């Protein structure tokens, strides 16, 4: 459990203790101090506890573990271990170009205004579909993958700017006239996972 989650649990335990005191001795509320105590116990602390707990849950929903806990996402998680530098997600994951514990979120969030918020709304929709709705036969992105998501990290980096393959392309890439994945087209390839050897991370 993270430090934030522990702090939230402590706050909630404190709130429950105060609620118990007021519930056992409700006549405390006949004096001013008791009224303040009841307001803290029954309103302020539960609201704060819920808001902080929600924040902890939303933060956790960015984790690779969270995304891959849905059965349908397992092949996508496995594709991060394809033993080939040609596969963009695998190369990013294995070489720590993205944080491994937030691998899905790092590339699939939208780096525009309200992008993080939209990702969370989509996440709620995914939860609904996973547990209540109907799973689509083929999983697809809501919209074509934007260069913006790649350029969030790569723009201006020496490797990107000086790459021979990018000669004369930088303007088109920046304005989305040319898509990064036109050339870097080996992505998750979940349909052919059986054909790929998987990388096993050596234990230290």
């Amino acid at each position, binding site marked *: *459990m993270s430090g934030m*989650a522990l702090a*939230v*649990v402590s706050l*909630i*335990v404190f*709130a*429950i203790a105060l*609620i*118990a005191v*007021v*519930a056992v001795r*409700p*006549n405390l*509320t006949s004096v001013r101090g008791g009224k303040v105590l*009841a*307001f803290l116990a*029954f*309103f302020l602390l*539960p*609201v704060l*506890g*819920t808001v902080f*707990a*929600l924040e*902890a*849950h939303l933060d*956790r*929903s960015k*984790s690779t*573990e*969270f995304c891959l*806990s*849905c059965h349908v996402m397992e092949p996508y998680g496995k594709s991060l271990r394809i033993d080939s530098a040609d596969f963009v997600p695998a190369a990013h994951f294995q070489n720590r170009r993205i944080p491994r514990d937030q691998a899905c979120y790092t590339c699939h969030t939208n780096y525009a205004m309200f992008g993080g918020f939209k990702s969370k709304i989509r996440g709620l929709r995914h*939860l609904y579909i*996973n*547990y209540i709705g109907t799973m689509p036969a083929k999983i697809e992105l809501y919209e074509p993958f934007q260069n913006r998501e790649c350029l969030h990290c790569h723009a201006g980096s020496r490797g990107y700017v000086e790459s021979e393959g990018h000669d004369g392309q930088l303007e088109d890439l920046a304005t989305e006239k040319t898509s990064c994945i036109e050339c870097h087209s080996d992505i998750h390839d979940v349909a052919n996972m059986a054909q790929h050897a998987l990388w096993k991370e050596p234990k230290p």
Partner: protein
Amino acid sequence: MTTLDAGITPRPIDRPIDKRLRRAALLIAPGLAIQAATLGSAHPLAFIVFMFPGGFLVAAGIVLFLWAIASA
């Protein structure tokens, strides 16, 4: 509060707000306990349990508390 001749101290008579506070406590405390329990897991189901039994109980309890103090 008075002490009867037999030495028994009677319970103070519950005011209407006391019952409402107890009912609010019975909603908020379990709701918060559920919310705290879900913080131990990164599974999507933990989030759903946090939102629905947990969040719903806390919200209902807070509404009941506000109604109790407004009507007192």
